[in-house]
């Protein structure tokens, strides 16, 4: 018996074939070409004909799928399940960040493909992480009939992997973006900005600590703003580039072999002169400074 869903799709398919024939014949196709789907002659408007013939094929496929599954009608589903009642579909038992992570991953891939393939690689990593976590979560959700046991199973499998990776990733993100800000700002500006940032963090943390209760949204928003500020600052730092560094010579300011960063806001010639005065060999100094940058 052809089910209602299949009738809909087979009907669409038949109508699309008919429309393709009408289009083909009216746009200069030969009857034989149109009937044989271009194997034995021209079909006129090639694009419209292929799209309509393809539409007919796709809807025919959908018709076959739904008729094979008996429209997934509750009666047939119960029969397939071998149960007395329709198997229950349980809504997700817990929240999951992985859909939004996957979406961010996809967006990062797109931006990376246009701007920089390294960024696309970051997106692929995010997508892979989301796929793995999603799969394990989906498996654990149905591992037993007890949600707590399922959660424990999932944690036992994933926590030894997640915790070190998440920690390392968090540290990397902080170090990377904070260092971009530090490298982009003038010497004393960096000190000031991170001094103020430390005071702000301390202030907010103190505020939270003294409250008897803090809403989840407030904490989430504070973390989100902080994270976005760090990443935004880092991206701005990346875009602005590092400030120029002044190499003080192989013996350094105090006679040590070190490199010191300085704000290069003043006269470039003057600073170059300083390098020449303080260093032993101007040419060697310049080449080393170039390497450092």
């Amino acid at each position, binding site marked *: 018996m052809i089910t209602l869903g299949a009738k809909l799709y087979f009907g669409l398919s038949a109508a699309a074939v008919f429309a393709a024939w009408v289009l083909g014949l009216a746009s200069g196709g030969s009857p034989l070409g149109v009937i044989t789907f271009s194997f034995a002659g021209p079909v006129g408007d090639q*694009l419209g004909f292929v799209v309509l013939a*393809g539409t007919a094929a*796709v809807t025919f*496929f959908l018709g076959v799928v739904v008729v094979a599954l008996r429209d997934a009608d509750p009666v047939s589903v119960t029969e397939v399940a071998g149960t007395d009642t329709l198997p229950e579909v349980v809504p997700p038992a817990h929240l999951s960040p992985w859909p939004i992570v996957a979406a961010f991953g996809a967006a990062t891939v797109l931006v990376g493909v246009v701007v920089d393939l390294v960024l696309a690689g970051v997106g692929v990593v995010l997508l892979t992480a989301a796929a793995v976590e999603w*799969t394990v979560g989906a498996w654990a959700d149905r591992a037993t009939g007890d949600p707590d046991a399922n959660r*424990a199973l999932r944690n036992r499998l994933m926590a030894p992997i997640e915790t070190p990776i998440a920690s390392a990733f968090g540290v990397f993100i902080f170090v990377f973006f904070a260092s971009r800000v530090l490298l982009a700002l003038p010497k004393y500006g960096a000190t000031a900005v991170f001094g103020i940032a430390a005071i702000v963090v301390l202030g907010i943390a103190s505020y939270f600590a003294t409250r008897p209760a803090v809403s989840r949204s407030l904490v989430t928003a504070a973390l989100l703003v902080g994270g976005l500020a760090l990443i935004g600052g880092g991206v701005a730092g990346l875009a602005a580039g590092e400030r120029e560094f002044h190499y003080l010579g192989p013996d350094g300011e105090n006679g040590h072999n070190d490199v010191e960063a300085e704000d290069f806001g003043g006269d470039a010639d003057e600073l170059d002169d300083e390098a020449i005065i303080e260093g032993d060999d101007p040419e060697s100094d310049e080449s080393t400074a170039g390497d450092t940058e």
Partner: protein
Amino acid sequence: MTAFVTDIIPADPPEAPRARPRMVLLGTGFTIAGFAALFVGLFAVYFTMRSSYIAAGDEWIPGGAGTIPLTPASMMFITLAMSSITMHWAIWAIGHDDRLNTWLGLGLTAMLAAAFLNQAAFLYDQMGWEIAGDLAVQSILIYAISGLQILMLVGAIVFLALMAFRAMAGGYSSRDSEGLVAASMFWHASVAAYAVVWTAIYQIK
């Protein structure tokens, strides 16, 4: 999300309720339909451009300008056809609760997929086409269509890997193997897509 490795798992938790049959199969069917429509859109433009070249008296792929070697393309077809058989082997095995043969079938399918991707890289290298110059239109369309088929196959590999993990974790058996069946549906669809690509692009040219 709090993760504690010391979470206690009850000794005898209740069995998970039966999953709702047909849902994953339906979702996969609709996804395949979406992919098929995507191919329809690409082939519509491909055939339109091809016929406009031929109607203007030009060759679609001019002799000497570049070649699309048929042998590696045909080997790729044979490889994927074999993967369809091994995929079916895995589905048959899980339907009979034969886990060893399930693994064997899935492993061979993955191996054949890797071989296909390697052959695809070889074919592109042999063609050596760039999206520029006289063959720009042809290469845009051929890369778009064949690239989409490769992307679909990669999607099928990921889908299969995810379902294989669930099978490994005891998620599927003869009583319920719809996840694996859905993955195999998508697999066969990506093989069918290559059959169309092989016929329309590599064979007919």
